[in-house]
């Protein structure tokens, strides 16, 4: 395989990242997708759009998020210095809001008057409901009926924020079915509705625009690292479900040859158990939800159920740019099990006084495997993509504690 001149030049004009990505949608949606692409190009070139995005990120979201050296975690792992990008300190408690701010500004620019979104654990739903409240736009959130049961606090949050939450009872009643239902709504309401997709996946231009909005993470981190230490980190680590926090951290560093990257996939009960959400490690390329990417599927191309203790990673696909970065070898993807993530969750709580989201705990769980491979002067930067308050019930149950 030839090495491209830049790893940051994807996708191509037709929305492909190498062999992945594209626009696999019903004809009804195609004109809208093409409109969205035109409008996004115009917005990207418009300084006023960028200025409004930046202003909201600073004063509403609370950016820049801190870059934090984690001394006790570093000591506990006895290897490279561990640095954390503190996305969990954003308004609404995760990186999701960055993307929602960008997309709602696009929706307003396109004159759309109704917002829809899918959500799994409810984090993207809460972030979407938040920006809809901020801009006074009606909002419908599709959520698998099973997830509605499991994530009552987030359902209530969304309702407080004025969103209508629709439980999805079709299929397996989880995130992928919520996404199917959101697509069904969109196809029937193309004239007035904007679909805020929560991760760097879906039909082009979504993977690109979500990445661009989330790249604030990596752009800040790169500048913060240089300002604080005078050099770039040796390794970046981030958890990958759909992969928006990971691509947001990685993308600004992709052409820095000295910076290695690990994307952590959820291995659930272990890859061999078949109960996991590791599309790259345990899946194969296919087409779902508008893009070609690695998917969990059987020999006939039927999508199989994902499993992870982290609801945010519990999806049978992955963003197409990650599939490409995996195939060209620029990013290494590492599976981490539920129990490894639980260990890391507790370690981070005890050593740093930071309760990470279970998603982020997967990223932290890569540290014991790699930190010792680096000298004490080396620096590893982990994206703490969200805070773990939402996960304490799940963690308590997994640890056999009643609360």
């Amino acid at each position: 395989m030839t090495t491209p001149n830049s790893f940051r030049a994807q996708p191509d004009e037709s929305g492909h990242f190498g062999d992945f990505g594209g626009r696999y949608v019903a004809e009804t949606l195609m004109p809208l997708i093409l409109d969205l692409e035109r409008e996004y190009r115009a917005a990207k070139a418009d300084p006023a759009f960028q200025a409004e995005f930046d202003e909201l990120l600073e004063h509403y979201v609370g950016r820049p998020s801190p870059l934090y050296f984690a001394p006790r975690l570093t000591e506990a792992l006895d290897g490279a210095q561990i640095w954390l990008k503190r996305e969990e300190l954003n308004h609404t408690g995760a990186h999701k809001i960055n993307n929602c701010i960008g997309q709602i500004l696009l929706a307003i620019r396109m004159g759309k008057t109704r917002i829809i979104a899918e959500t799994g654990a409810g984090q993207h739903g809460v972030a979407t409901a938040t920006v809809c409240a901020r801009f006074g736009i009606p909002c419908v959130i599709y959520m698998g009926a099973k997830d509605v049961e499991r994530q009552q606090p987030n359902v209530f949050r969304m309702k407080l924020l004025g969103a209508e939450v629709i439980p999805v009872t079709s299929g397996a009643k989880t995130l992928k079915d919520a996404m199917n239902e959101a697509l069904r709504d969109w196809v029937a309401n193309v004239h007035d509705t904007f679909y805020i997709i929560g991760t760097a996946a879906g039909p082009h231009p979504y993977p690109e625009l979500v990445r661009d909005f989330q790249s604030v993470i990596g752009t800040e981190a790169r500048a913060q690292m240089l300002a604080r230490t005078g050099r770039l980190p040796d390794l970046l680590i981030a958890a990958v479900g759909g992969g928006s926090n990971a691509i947001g951290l990685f993308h600004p560093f992709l052409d820095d040859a000295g910076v290695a990257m690990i994307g952590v996939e959820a291995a659930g009960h272990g890859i061999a158990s078949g109960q996991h959400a590791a599309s790259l490690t345990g899946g194969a390329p296919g087409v779902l939800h508008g893009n070609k990417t690695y998917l969990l599927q059987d020999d006939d191309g039927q999508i199989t159920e994902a499993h992870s203790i982290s609801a945010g990673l519990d999806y049978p696909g992955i963003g197409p740019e990650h599939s490409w970065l995996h195939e060209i070898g620029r990013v290494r993807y590492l599976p981490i099990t539920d129990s490894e993530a639980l260990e890391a969750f507790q370690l981070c709580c005890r050593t740093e006084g930071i309760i990470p989201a279970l998603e982020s705990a997967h990223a932290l769980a890569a540290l014991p495997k790699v930190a010792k491979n680096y000298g004490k002067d080396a620096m590893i930067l982990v994206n703490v993509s969200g805070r773990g308050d939402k996960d304490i019930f799940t963690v308590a149950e997994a640890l056999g504690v009643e609360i």
Partner: protein
Amino acid sequence: MTRLSNAFPKDRAALVCFVTAGDPNAAATPAILDALVTGGADVIELGMPFTDPMADGPAIQAANLRSLGAGTTTADILTIARDFRARHPNVPLVLMGYANPMLRRGATWFANAARDAGVDGVICVDTPPEEDAALGPALRASGVDLIRLATPTTDGARLPTVLGGASGFLYYVSVAGITGKQQAAQTSIEEAVARLKAATDLPVAVGFGVRTPEQAEAIARVADGVVVGSAIVELIGKHGADAPGAITPYIQSLSAAVRAARKESK
């Protein structure tokens, strides 16, 4: 002339009938297909079940789940097609479904398997012209028609893109929405069909939301084909393997309406 183009006579509209393969199970499908033919179906659309049928409404979603729940495989669907071709040498058969099951073993494998099973055409719901390279070239090389969809959102500027590489017939999805939900106003259908027929020599078949003989007759006055799906699938949902007894008279009522449509107006 192919089997598919022969199915759209000049003097009347063709009746195109959709069912999901393997619903309620693979063993029951042949008798259901025979009931469609007996009732007067001119073209059969055989749905390939998929776990995530995002363009379909509740009726066809449920049919997909029933089929997959019964263990229907791609091999079963191809067997159903091959046996249908043996029983009905002249009735065109179209496979309709989503990209992932079609592409799983490679586009060339699928196109050749479809051809070898006697399939005349393929409709892939989530592969628009922009992604033609994924499936189109393989189908054309195998001599299987690639049937494209046009919708109310396909404007004049976009229509040539849709028609490029299309063959067999053009499927006009008359509502912006999912299958089986509501029917478009007759005037909007008439306008759209006129617009499409001005742009292509392919037969234009109209579907989505067509359930009654009256609706079918109205569409048959202006279009080359009328597609009925969810209403048939609902009969299968209700009657299961006993559905053929209910399907034949229902299809007969649609077929009679389609055949009468242009006689009255003359």
